[in-house]
């Protein structure tokens, strides 16, 4: 399970994507995924917001995630 990273999230992790270790239990929901990412990279917890997109749509905390989904962390957007 891979997570795409952009903006400050990419800087914090130091890479444009993050792959969950195949040996650990995978997150089953968006909420679990965010929790695991914040645990691994505490700086993510300091952002003013952190959303998750599943298959390029904003996802709710309860949305389930499976391997094969295109998952992305969405730090605070600032277009325009």
């Amino acid at each position, binding site marked *: 399970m891979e997570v795409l990273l952009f903006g400050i999230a990419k800087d914090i992790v130091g890479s444009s994507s993050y792959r969950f270790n195949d040996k650990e239990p995978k997150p089953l929901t968006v909420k679990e995924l965010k929790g695991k990412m914040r645990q691994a990279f505490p700086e993510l917890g300091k952002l003013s917001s952190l959303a998750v997109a599943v298959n390029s749509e904003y996802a709710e905390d309860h949305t389930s995630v499976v391997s094969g989904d295109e998952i992305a962390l969405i730090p605070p957007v*600032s*277009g325009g």
Partner: protein
Amino acid sequence: MNHIKKIEIVDQIDVSQVYDELSHANSGGVCVFVGSVREFTQNEQVVALEFETYKAMALKEMAKIADEACEKWQLNKVVIRHAVGRKEVQEPVVVVGASSGHRDGCFEACRFLIDTLKDTVPIWKKEIFKNKEVWVSSTP
């Protein structure tokens, strides 16, 4: 309906083309907003901005905004175009616009397009100062 909406993420914005894209025989009014790089942010001199996007998702979100605008107002044409990459002072970074029969519609829609874009579209802006770089809005 999709022929009336032009949604793009580009390397460089050509502002002079947008009026032709919005012009329409049934439109009495066209309203366009162009966002560009300001030289100063809170009294600090900006060298450049750098924009990054999650393109597939950004295009979807931009299309949703255009759709919503077309539901709220009677529009003949809509353009939403954002640039990515490094942009120097005074360069355009975003252009949004709408055309409608009367001016109320295009003004309100144009404002809605840029406000909503800034809220929802996955585009990130890094301010590059002389001695530091800051991802805008990322921390409280």
